[in-house]
């Protein structure tokens, strides 16, 4: 009987300590998180990313109860062409002086057959619009890795200049490796 009590005590202690270990706020920075985009047109494409971002991935063991929040400094954008970077930051596209930040706040993370579906609100270019994207999320070795590729329609955030010349859909790629 005593050994059974001891076992139960040990089991509950293990579960409790396990849950404590899994509950964590992973701080996201440009060092452990990359947000890339590829814009395209009829005769080519260009890749860009952001050098400054902050955020956190809060998780307590169960990924579907996790919360993801990322704020990106639009001014920190870099692309494979300097003059394109200046053009993208101008009022033609991101309008970085008026809308200095983009922010994503997750509302739900649902388990799917091939990873998770992250849903939330993306505020970009002064417009807040729902965004859902598939992601592979792994909690291992005391850290979290997130990997996602998806497309978003720039017009949904009011970035509409150059319609017909620049494709509406922008390929996004997100990678997080945080501890």
């Amino acid at each position, binding site marked *: 009987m005593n050994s059974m009590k001891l076992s139960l005590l040990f089991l509950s202690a293990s579960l409790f300590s396990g849950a404590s270990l899994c509950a964590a706020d992973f701080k996201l920075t440009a060092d452990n998180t990359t947000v890339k985009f590829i814009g395209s047109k009829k005769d*080519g494409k*260009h890749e860009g990313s952001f050098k400054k971002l902050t955020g956190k991935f809060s998780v307590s063991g169960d990924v579907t109860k996790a919360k993801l929040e990322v704020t990106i400094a639009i001014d920190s954008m870099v692309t494979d*062409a300097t*003059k*394109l*970077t*200046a*053009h993208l*930051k*101008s*009022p*033609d596209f991101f*309008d*970085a*002086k*008026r809308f200095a930040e983009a922010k994503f706040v997750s509302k739900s993370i649902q388990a799917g057959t091939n990873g998770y579906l992250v849903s939330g609100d993306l505020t970009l270019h002064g417009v807040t619009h729902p965004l859902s994207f598939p992601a592979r999320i792994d909690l291992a070795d005391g850290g979290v890795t997130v990997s996602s590729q998806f497309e978003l329609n720039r017009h949904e955030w009011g970035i*509409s*200049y*150059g*319609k*017909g*010349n620049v494709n509406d859909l922008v390929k996004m790629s997100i990678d997080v490796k945080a501890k």
Partner: protein
Amino acid sequence: MNSVPPWPIVQSMILTVMLPGFAVGAGVLAAVCSVTRSETRRLIGGALALAGGLALGNSARGLLPWWSLEWGWPSLFPATLLAIGGGVIAALTTAATGRRRGGALRVSVLAGCAFWLAPAESPLGHLGVFALLFVASMLNWEVFRRSGAQSLGRAALLGVVIPWGIAAATVLIHAHSARFCDLAILQTSTLCGIGVIAAMWRLDSATLFVGSAIFFPALLLGGAVNTFSEVPTASFILVALAPCALWVLRLAPMRRWSGRTLATSALVAVLIPCAIAVGLALRAETLDFGH
């Protein structure tokens, strides 16, 4: 690096910016002039032509919000319409009740537009930028009005607006904003359409330039504040204030000039600040249409 715009971009610019502006500007004013000899109706027709040209180009290209209460360039379309309408009402008020009321109305409209179009966040603050924009637009408009009275208003104002608009477009494209460049070309094309008809019907179109007096300085201010380039601030300022060079022609010796002498002098006076501004922009930045 490809510094020459490819043909599809030029073609799109002609079809969706230049032609709508010019055709509506010229078409509406020509239609009004052909059905009425009333100066008042023709003036109102000119205002409608200007508003129509801007609206059609804006619709074709999606350049500006139709309505905005935001400070700064997003309100450029409604604020310009207010300036055009206010300019016409001020001119009619001056004709009906005298200079004082017309002048007060003109100052009020330009002050309101300048307050609306001054960006909220800038190193000088909203009030500081408002004061500069108001003074710039007031100086521009007043010189247009007085030059018009000096008989420059018929065909020669067209010669002033074309280099002004081209210089604005050149500086803005070198600041890497195609949207602002389109807006400068749209306004210039519309004014060209109006200017051609005004010259044919011998109308004094100076009153209609009140929209440009605030439009170009506000657009260039928007470009200076919101773009990312090495184009010096002096380029934006020189173009914004280029028509102020016409004040030289108001000095005593030149005041009596008329005809070709006056028109050529006006063109040269405006070309000088425009050429310096464009030269500075070209030296600071290159274009790459390859991206």
